[in-house]
């Protein structure tokens, strides 16, 4: 039936094409004759014997291909609309897919167009999942997302094995099952059912199996003919190529991210070890003299047990002890910042973390005439994180603000809780020199700096830390108008549970 249809279609197309060419030729010929008679009556072209032949040949050479294409499309669309139109749409899709390098987008386009155009019940695109594990569904038409999210077709499953050995032939469920013994067939049925397939198109890009296109029809008695299978093979070959390109892109992207991560980890590690060593050395060298000063003052102070001492002297001694402790606290804080290793999370109070950070720069800012104002919301929930990491993240931002200002200016620190998005937002604004527009997207890059004596790691490290907590950081700035850094830190599940109102827990208990 399909065979006859195809022949008839071809015949009709040829006849129409010939007739059109002939008609066009005659029209052109007569127009040219009239024109030449009118303008050059002396040697009219119409009297030349080869003139009509030449014109027809020229016309045939120039117009045959475009006309054939035009008729072919016209025929597919209007005479045998349903099936061939579907094939054309799908072939056009494969052209489009060559430009798509995102695997998810590609998979969505394939299954949805394929499923809709062929009026299928289900269509699923399976791609290899990880190393030698099997296939997972990249996208599916006619499935519920939750049905395929965890679905795996093992690499060793009978169907997967069959595809690997049988090559790019379309597998028809009923035929395949009949070709095997009962036991093998039942295992294959399981696989076909798993991916809801009546037909499976293996997607081979050259020798490489890049995926499977599994689909099932609305009616169980639907059949596809030879031309359909030809089409499926060609379609499969084309999308296999696109999938291969997209998965290579995906792998490259993943490798790139891994590389960046390990790079930043390396930068972080080297930096921390250097600072830690430095801070340990400094703290040690400073704490010993402080111990001597404070110790001797305490010994003197304790003399009051034996004989009375002048209250003014007692005051002086107490001040010495107090101030040495203060100095030691500063070096201790410096040290805490440097000890990033063993990053354990704990319940943190963000305002306190901000205060600790500001305490470290308070000497510098008072010297430089920089005013610090705080707008910290009193109702901030606790945040689960590593105190050293968060302090470092904020310290880098504050130091950045201090350096942008130089002398005389203001740093505004604001923090509030966004109940809708369940996150804590910290804003650090300065009245400093601002950032040039072309540098705005570079400030978080490692080793980017506009200062000669800086490493350019501060904001990069801050970004890494913020990302580590699933947060985001961005900057708004104009040259001369200061900068605003916005850090958004989402509350972890742990923190959200801790935030659950006690009254609610109480009612639960009562029930």
């Amino acid at each position, binding site marked *: 039936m399909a065979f006859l249809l195809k022949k008839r279609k071809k015949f009709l197309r040829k006849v129409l094409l010939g007739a059109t060419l002939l008609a066009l030729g005659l029209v052109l010929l007569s127009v040219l004759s009239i024109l030449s008679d009118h303008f050059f009556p002396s040697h009219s072209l119409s009297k030349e014997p080869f003139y009509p032949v030449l014109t027809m040949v020229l016309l045939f050479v120039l117009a045959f291909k475009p006309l054939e294409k035009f008729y072919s499309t016209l025929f597919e669309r209007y005479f045998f609309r349903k099936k061939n139109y579907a094939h054309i749409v799908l072939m056009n899709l494969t052209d489009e897919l060559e430009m798509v390098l995102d695997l998810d987008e590609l998979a969505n386009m394939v299954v949805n167009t394929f499923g809709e155009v062929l009026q299928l019940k289900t269509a699923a695109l399976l791609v290899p999942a990880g190393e030698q594990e099997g296939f997972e569904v990249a996208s599916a038409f006619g499935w519920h997302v939750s049905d395929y999210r965890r679905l795996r077709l093992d690499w060793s499953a009978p169907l997967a094995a069959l595809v690997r050995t049988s090559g790019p032939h379309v597998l028809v469920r009923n035929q395949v099952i009949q070709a095997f013994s009962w036991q093998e067939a039942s295992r294959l049925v399981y696989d076909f059912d798993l991916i809801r397939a009546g037909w499976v198109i293996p997607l081979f890009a050259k020798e490489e199996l890049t995926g499977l296109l599994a689909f099932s029809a609305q009616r169980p008695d639907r059949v596809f003919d030879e031309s359909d299978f030809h089409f499926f093979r060609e379609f499969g070959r084309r999308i296999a190529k696109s999938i291969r390109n997209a998965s290579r892109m995906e792998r490259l992207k993943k490798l790139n991210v891994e590389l960046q991560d390990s790079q930043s980890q390396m930068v972080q590690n080297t930096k921390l070890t250097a600072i830690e060593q430095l801070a340990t050395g400094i703290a040690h060298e400073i704490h010993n003299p402080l111990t001597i000063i404070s*110790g001797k003052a*305490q010994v003197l102070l*304790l003399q009051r047990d034996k004989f009375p001492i002048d209250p003014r002297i007692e005051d002086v001694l107490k001040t010495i002890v107090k101030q040495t402790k203060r100095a030691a606290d500063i070096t201790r804080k410096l040290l805490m910042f440097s000890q990033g290793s063993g990053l354990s999370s704990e319940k943190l109070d963000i305002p306190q973390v901000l205060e600790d950070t500001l305490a470290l720069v308070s000497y510098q800012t008072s010297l430089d005439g920089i005013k610090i104002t705080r707008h910290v919301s009193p109702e901030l929930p606790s945040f689960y994180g590593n105190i050293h990491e968060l302090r470092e993240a904020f310290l880098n931002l504050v130091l950045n603000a201090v350096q942008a200002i130089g002398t005389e200016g203001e740093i505004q620190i604001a923090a509030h809780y966004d109940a809708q998005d369940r996150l804590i937002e910290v804003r650090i604004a300065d009245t400093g020199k601002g950032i040039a527009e072309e540098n705005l997207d570079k400030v978080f890059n490692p080793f980017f700096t506009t200062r000669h004596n800086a490493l350019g790691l501060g904001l990069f490290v801050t970004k890494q830390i913020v990302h580590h907590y699933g947060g985001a950081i961005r900057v708004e700035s104009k040259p001369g108008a200061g900068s605003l850094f916005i850090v958004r830190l989402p509350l972890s599940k742990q923190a959200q549970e801790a935030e659950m109102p006690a009254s609610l827990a109480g009612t639960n208990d009562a029930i």
Partner: protein
Amino acid sequence: MKRLLVVDDETEICDFLKMFFEDRGFTVTTANSGQKALDQLDQVKPHVILLDIHMPAMDGLTALREIKKRLPDAKVIMVTAIETRDKIEEAMRLGADNYITKPLSLDYLEKDVQEKVTQLAKSGKMTESV
């Protein structure tokens, strides 16, 4: 008589600790290196030892190992300029009885040392020979 051994590479620190604890009825011996502390150990037989962690040549942790071998009943309080967690953990694992950070609060230190002495007395180990 309560005997105290102070080990610190800073002689000034040894000096005021000696002054302070002698006022409180201790017999205080000082040593400004781990090796010197070990050299005097058998002779002094201290009840409590204040041992600095960071010292050149032989550090506090090495000295601690040797002390715990030779005088297992002596109470050792580690003194450290900074809270390097790993060093402190290692010291506690090696048998140190407590640690205190510099700058020292003498009130706190005195309480701690007295407490160790009391512990020894209760367990009947406050004999002349430890």
